[in-house]
C-alpha cells in the first residue's frame, strides 16, 4: 500500500534514474523525499541536486540529460508554471526527461487542491502528457515513458499527471515490479547528441531563418506524430512482461452501446466509472472514455468513439478562457468534419472542488437528455458552483 507520490518515486528508482533535480512544492514533496530516502539508504544509485527553484530544477535536468544520463523531476502548479521556459527548452533540445506533475490549482488565491490548469497550460510545450487515474498507473507510466521517450525516433520529454491529494497522498495497493524485469524492459540511455569531449560541437547555437531551423522543428513534429505508435508498442510490451494494460491513449469503459459517453481524465474518470456501473444497473446506457494521453492528442481514438454514440460529454478540470476547457476545445476540433453528434463541455472540480458521484450522475443524466434531444442546451457549463441548484444532490 503506497501513495501516488511514493509510486512515482518507485518508478524513478526502478527506472534507474541517475540524476534527480527537484524543488519542493506541496503536494509533490513526498516524491522527492522518498527518492532522497532511497538514495540515503543506498537503495537508489543516483545524484540528487537540491536545486534552489523549479526553473533551475528543469535547467539542471536538461544539462544532465544532455550529458547523457537519465534524469527525473517532479513538481506541481506554480513550480510547473515557473519551469515553462525550460519545458520548451527541454523539448526543443529533444531530451527524454520524465517528470511527475501533481495537478494542483494555480493562484491567486492559493489552493493546494486538484485541478488541471497547471498541466493544461503547458500543452503547447512539446511534452508528451499522460494523466494517471491510479497509483499503479503512475508507477507504470514512469517506466513506460522512459522507454517511449528514449526511443531514437522519439527523443521527447514527458510528464505524467496525478491529482493532488486524491492520488498523491492516498494509499492504494500497488504492485512494485521486479527490478530485474524492469532492467530487461528498459535499456540504458544512449543519447545521440550528448556532450562529448571527443566531439567539440556547439549544442544549441544561434541559427538564422534561412538555416534549417524550420526543418528541425518539423522533424520534431514528425517525431511527435510517431509517438502514438510507440505508445501502443511499448504498452503491449509492458503487458507481456508485467501483465498490466491500460487501453492505449484512451481507455474505453462500457462504451460499446452507449447512448452518451463522457470524455474525461484522471480521478474524475475513476469516480465516473462507479457512476457508469450504477446507471448501467438501472438500464441507462452510458459509457466513459478516459483520456490518458493528452499529448499526443488522441484524435483517432476520439473519432472512433464518436461513431459509437449519440453524444459526448467532455469534462474539463481546467478552463482556457478561450472557448471552453482544453479537452473540449481539442475534442471538438478533431471531430469537425468527422462527426456531428452534440458535444457539451462540463467544467468541474476547479480549485479542488469535490466532484461527487451524485453530481456526476446528474451530469450523465444531462448527457442522456441531450443525446435524446439531438442538440446541446448550452455548449459550456460550469458544474458544481455553490448555490447552483441544478447540480446539487
Amino acid at each position, binding site marked *: 500500500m503506497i501513495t501516488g507520490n511514493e509510486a512515482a518515486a518507485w518508478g524513478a528508482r526502478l527506472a534507474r534514474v*541517475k*540524476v534527480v*533535480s527537484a524543488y519542493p512544492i506541496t503536494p509533490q514533496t513526498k516524491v522527492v523525499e522518498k527518492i532522497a530516502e532511497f538514495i540515503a539508504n543506498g537503495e537508489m544509485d*543516483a*545524484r540528487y*541536486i*537540491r*536545486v*534552489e*527553484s523549479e*526553473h*533551475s*530544477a528543469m*535547467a*539542471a*535536468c*536538461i*544539462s*544532465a*540529460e*544532455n*550529458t*547523457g*544520463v537519465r*534524469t527525473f523531476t517532479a513538481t506541481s502548479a506554480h513550480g510547473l508554471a515557473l519551469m515553462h*521556459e*525550460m519545458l520548451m*527548452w527541454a523539448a526543443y533540445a529533444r531530451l527524454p526527461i520524465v517528470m511527475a506533475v501533481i495537478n494542483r490549482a494555480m493562484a491567486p488565491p492559493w489552493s493546494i487542491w486538484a485541478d488541471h490548469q497547471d498541466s493544461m497550460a503547458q500543452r503547447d510545450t512539446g511534452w508528451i502528457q499522460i494523466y494517471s487515474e491510479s497509483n499503479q498507473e503512475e508507477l507504470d507510466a514512469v517506466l513506460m515513458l522512459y522507454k517511449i521517450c528514449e526511443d531514437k525516433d522519439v527523443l521527447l520529454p514527458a510528464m505524467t499527471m496525478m491529482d493532488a491529494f486524491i492520488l498523491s497522498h492516498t494509499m492504494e495497493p500497488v504492485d512494485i515490479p521486479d527490478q530485474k524485469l524492469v532492467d530487461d524492459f528498459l535499456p540504458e540511455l544512449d543519447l545521440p547528441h550528448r*556532450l*562529448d*569531449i571527443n*566531439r*567539440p*560541437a*556547439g*549544442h*544549441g*547555437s*544561434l*541559427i*538564422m531563418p534561412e*538555416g*534549417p531551423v524550420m526543418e528541425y522543428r518539423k522533424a520534431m513534429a514528425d517525431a511527435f506524430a510517431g509517438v502514438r505508435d510507440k505508445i501502443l508498442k511499448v504498452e503491449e510490451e509492458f503487458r507481456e512482461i508485467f501483465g498490466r494494460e491500460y487501453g492505449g491513449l484512451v481507455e474505453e469503459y462500457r462504451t460499446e452501446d452507449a447512448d452518451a459517453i463522457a470524455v474525461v481524465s484522471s480521478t474524475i474518470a475513476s469516480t465516473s466509472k462507479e457512476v457508469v456501473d450504477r446507471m448501467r444497473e438501472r438500464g441507462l446506457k452510458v459509457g466513459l472514455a478516459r483520456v490518458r494521453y493528452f499529448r499526443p492528442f488522441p484524435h483517432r481514438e476520439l473519432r472512433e468513439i464518436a461513431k459509437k454514440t449519440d453524444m459526448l460529454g467532455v469534462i474539463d478540470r481546467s478552463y482556457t478562457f478561450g472557448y471552453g476547457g482544453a479537452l473540449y476545445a481539442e475534442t471538438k476540433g478533431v471531430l469537425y468534419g468527422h462527426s456531428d453528434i452534440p458535444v457539451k463541455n462540463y467544467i468541474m472540480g476547479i480549485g479542488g472542488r469535490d466532484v461527487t458521484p451524485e453530481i456526476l450522475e446528474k451530469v450523465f443524466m444531462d448527457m442522456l437528455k441531450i443525446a435524446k434531444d439531438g442538440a446541446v442546451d448550452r455548449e459550456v457549463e460550469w458544474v458544481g458552483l455553490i448555490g447552483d441548484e441544478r447540480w446539487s444532490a
Partner: protein
Amino acid sequence: MRNTTIPEEEYMLPGHVACLGCGAALAMRYALKALGKKTIVSVPACCWAVIPGVYPYRTLEVPLLYTAFEVTGAAISGIREALEVLGQDDVTVMGWAGDGGTADIGIQALSGAMEREHNVIYVMYDNEAYMNTGVQRSGATPFGAWTTTTPVGKLRIYKKERKKPVAEMMVAQGVPYVATANIAYPEDLIRKLRKAKEMKGPKFIHIYATCPTGWRVPPNKTIEIAKLAVQTRVFPLYEVENGVYKINVKPKERVPVRDYLRMQGRFRHLTEEEVELIQKMVDEEWEKLLLKEEMTNRVRKE
C-alpha cells in the same frame, strides 16, 4: 625556438564574430589555455552565445552547451553531477556567463550552485552592461556610466548605483576560491584558472573584459584600458582562498582614476566633481580591501 609567458596551445579558432578588440574573446582564449581539452563549457544568452557564429559554425575545440539566460549555475550543476555518474570526474566543467547573466538574472542559480558545493568553475566575464542586447545597464555597470538605459540626457541620468560586488558576495557565501582576473594580465588569469581546475568544489572567477563597442573606446585600446583599471585600483586583482584575501597587484604609484575614465566615451559626460567622487569611492574600496587582506591573514595566523 621560442618561449612564451602563457601556454601556446589554442582552443579557440579564428573566424568567430566577436567585435574588433573584444575583451570577452580574449578572456575565453586564455581560460581555455588554462583548462585544456577536457573541458565542457556552458554559456547562457550573452555575447558568447553569438561569438562562435551561427549554425553550423563552432569556434571552440571543446563542447559548448548553449543554455537559457538565467540558468548557468543550474546548468553546470547538472553537467557535473552527470559526469560523476559517468565516472568522468577528470573533465572540467566551466560556466561562462556575462555580468548581466550572473549579477542580475543569474544570481539565484549562481548562489544555489555555489551553496551546493558542486565541483564547478563559474566565470563571470564582465563587460559591465548587457552588451549582447545593445549596451543596457546591468547591476555590474559601474557608477557613472552611460548605457542605453541610463543615457544621461538632459536630466543627467547615468548609472547612479554602485557596481554590484558579485565576487564579494561569493566570498560572503563562503565559496572556497574566489578570484578577480583581467585580460591585460593573462599570466595571472591563467594561473588562477589552473588553480581553480585543481581544486575540488565551487570556484568563482570574475574576469574584467573590456568592451570597446559598449564603452565607446577605440578597439586598439582594449588592453591598455584593462591595465589601467588595475593600476588605478578601479578593478583590483585579488584572490580569496577559504576566506583569506591576497591582493595580487598593488600599484606602487597612485594612478588617478581620471586617466581611466577620460579614455572612455561612456564616462564623457562626467564633471570634474563627479570624477573626484569616483576617485573617493575607489580609494575607499581599496582601503577596505587592504583591511580585509590584513584582517583575514591575521585571523588565519591565530
